[in-house]
């Protein structure tokens, strides 16, 4: 097809950009995950994309890799409008993706994983030989050393990630997208990764780095785009910006929720933790020595980007995950693993738990509201008049009272949990856990997916419980929630505590920097 003069000029100008997105929008039901996003990524650069949880970064990348189709908008690869209906199209367009959760076959060798889907013919032997040679070259060139015959399940997480990069390079990807690549890496592994990325850039590859860690952005990227609430709010040349500016852009100027509260009157310590450590089934250290204490009558807020160990901390305390370290409850040591470290025992010890994921853990969605009110407390003698009979009427009665006091709408115990809105589901969980006046309340993301009116109500209830003398451990990724509710704030990053602040002596920007690993 013959191009007209101005068109050709446009093509040449545009092809400075490896990727250009124009007006990409994507909605999931009522949630607008991406709103009219436009971005240009120059060829041969490392381009960072930062944003808080739920800012829409992952959705955008999924659109680029053909997992979702955008509702509106246009994708240009090297200046050419490109349709990406599936992963194959993305690969053909020269895009390689390193997912946060690796897509590797665990009991295959490195070589087999690398060639999977990109074999050089019907038989494996020539493909494997070719890949072996190429891997040797890549290893020499980019410090991408991995034993090609090792099984994935025997490799460290850092090496597994290298296999993902090798997969993309084997497919001759020109554009490499990495989604939170350092979340699972040790600092030295992360440094190694950055050296690899710089080497790739020097070879002319374009790299998109999605992360919430500003230190990484400052260290390796050439340009950085900031996303907030589904929108692309700014793009900066990294050398001309600062972590402070980026943190401000990420967090935005939020409407601070005002919560009426008096200063806390902390009493005796309820929970004392010393050097808590958790290693998950993959061998990744999730908690690397957490020490903290919480007193009666105070709210300790834990700020942090999701995935920095807060969830594991909650699960350990709720008796859902074993850990090492020392723990005391009201001065008495209690086990963190083995017998006596289960969820029932913790409840009996007056520790209540509002889990982060209410639909997966906190509620049985197919159960009626009253059944959910008894959930976890189904051994309560008040619900069990005899060993073999559960008194459903008593539970329903109890549920009705609790639901009314917590303003669950409608306050109908006979409705299924799945029939309530997110906010009302959360109120059911809160009513169940808080009405028992626990000594310690563990609460994760209390207002995730909850409407404004309910947020206010939930915050008030938490303050009431505090004033009644409970100790509350609040985990939230919402900074303003942490700021407005907490009496003390601890920031977690990478399984460690980055520092402690008093809410009146800090602000969102400072916390944002700490959450991004910039102490």
């Amino acid at each position, binding site marked *: 097809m013959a191009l007209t003069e101005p068109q050709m000029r446009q093509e040449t100008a545009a092809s400075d950009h490896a990727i250009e997105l124009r007006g990409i929008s994507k909605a999931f039901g009522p949630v607008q995950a991406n709103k009219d996003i436009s971005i240009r990524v120059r060829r041969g650069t490392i381009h960072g994309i930062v944003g808080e949880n739920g800012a829409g970064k992952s959705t955008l990348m999924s659109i680029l890799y053909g*997992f979702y189709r955008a509702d509106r908008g246009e994708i240009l690869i090297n200046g050419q409008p490109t349709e990406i209906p599936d992963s*194959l199209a993305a690969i053909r367009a020269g895009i390689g993706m390193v997912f946060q959760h690796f*897509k590797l*076959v665990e009991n295959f060798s490195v070589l087999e994983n690398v060639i999977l889907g990109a074999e050089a013919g*019907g038989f494996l032997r020539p493909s494997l030989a070719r890949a072996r040679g190429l891997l040797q070259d890549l290893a020499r060139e980019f410090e991408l050393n991995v034993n090609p015959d090792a099984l994935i399940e025997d490799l460290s997480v850092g090496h597994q990630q290298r296999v993902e990069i090798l997969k993309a390079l084997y497919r001759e990807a020109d554009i490499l997208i990495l989604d939170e690549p350092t979340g699972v890496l040790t600092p030295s592994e992360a440094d190694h990764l950055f050296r690899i990325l710089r080497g790739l850039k020097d070879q002319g590859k374009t790299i998109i780095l999605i992360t919430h860690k500003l230190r990484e952005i400052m260290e390796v990227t050439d340009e950085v785009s900031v996303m907030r609430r589904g929108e692309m709010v700014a793009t900066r040349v990294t050398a001309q910006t600062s972590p402070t500016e980026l943190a401000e852009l990420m967090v935005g100027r939020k409407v601070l929720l005002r919560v009426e509260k008096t200063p806390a009157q902390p009493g005796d310590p309820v929970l004392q933790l010393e050097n808590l450590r958790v290693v998950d089934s993959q061998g990744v250290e999730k908690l690397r020595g957490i020490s903290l204490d919480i007193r009666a009558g105070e709210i300790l807020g834990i700020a942090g980007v999701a995935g920095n160990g807060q969830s594991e901390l909650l699960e350990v305390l709720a008796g859902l995950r074993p850990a090492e370290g020392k723990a005391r409850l009201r001065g008495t040591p209690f086990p963190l693993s083995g017998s006596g470290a289960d969820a029932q025992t913790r409840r009996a010890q007056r520790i209540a738990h509002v889990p982060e994921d209410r639909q997966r853990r906190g509620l049985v969605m197919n159960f009626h509201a009253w059944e959910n009110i008894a959930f976890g407390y189904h051994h309560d003698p008040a619900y069990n008049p005899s060993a073999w009979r559960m008194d459903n009427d008593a539970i329903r009665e109890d549920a009705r009272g609790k639901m009314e006091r917590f303003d669950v709408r409608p306050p109908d115990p006979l409705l299924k949990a799945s029939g309530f809105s997110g906010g009302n589901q959360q109120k059911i969980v809160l009513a169940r856990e808080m009405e028992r006046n626990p000594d310690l309340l563990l609460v994760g993301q209390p207002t995730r997916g909850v409407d404004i009116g309910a947020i206010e109500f939930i915050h008030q209830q938490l303050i009431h419980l505090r004033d009644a003398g409970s100790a509350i451990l609040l985990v939230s990724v919402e900074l303003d929630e942490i700021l407005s509710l907490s009496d003390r704030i601890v920031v977690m990053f990478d399984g460690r505590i980055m520092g402690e602040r008093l809410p009146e002596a800090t602000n969102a920007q400072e916390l944002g920097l700490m959450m991004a690993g910039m102490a």
Partner: protein
Amino acid sequence: MDIATLVQVLDSTLRLATPLLFACLAGLISERAGVFDIGLEGKMLVAAFMAAAIAFVSGNVWIGVAAAVAASVAMALLHGVASITFRGNQLISGVAINFLAAGITVVIAQNWFRQGGRTPSLSGDARMRRIDLPFAESVRDVPFLGPVYHGILSGHALLVYVAFLCVPLTWFVLFRTRFGLRLRAVGENPAAVDTAGVSVVRLRYGAVAICGVLCGLAGAYLATGLSAGFVKDMTAGRGFIALAAMIFAKWRPWHAMGAVLLFGLLEAVANRFQNMEILGLAVPVQAMQALPYILTVVILAGFVGKAIPPRAGGSPYVKEH
């Protein structure tokens, strides 16, 4: 036990192991691709009926075999529609297929032949001919070689040799070809295959179809090689023995051959002797019949080397990240 009896038992071991081997490899390929199949029994049964019925009508056993394979593949695709396309429960689908086969073979057999749910006996070209291996006659009287070559290895139907050739073939396809690599990957981690730009659905349908072909051969041999016609429920649990052998072999082709030979031997011995004395202990025939199942449970329980199925087995693939 004298030599002649031993030769007879081993000879019938090969014949009895043949349908097991086909079905076992069928299940192995399906499950390696992540589709559980407890419907091997049903597919074999339908194939056995079709083989016998069409061979009888046409007078040509190979037309019967083709019909058997076609019918078995049709059942396999039904399983595919339920478990891949509609993401239904693969185990329930397998159960349904077993019953469907048990019922429909008798209903149609009765309608076509009116002999109480069986086909007429096959003879001549409607049955599989035995093949004498080269020089079988000439080495007949050579000590050791004679009984082994002439007595045991030679003189079986073509499908017996095909079945045993399928073992290296399956191994080669699974571990030395692109298709095999992808097939194993889709049973372990379909997301890896999907993000590599390969269709999970197409691969799984491919595996299910191959499973159908092999079950078809198993049933065809059963009705036209091992027996001379179809009778009601003639698979008699062989599909489940094959399933047991597959687990026993931990989803590996060469081990599968070992397992079916062991289970075939047990059946041959149980057929030959009602009660056996082993080391002065009377072993009832029922113990021999139950042994494959008991061994499989022991392996499943992980008391002797745990059997770990393909990791994505049994679950439909839903795209997420």
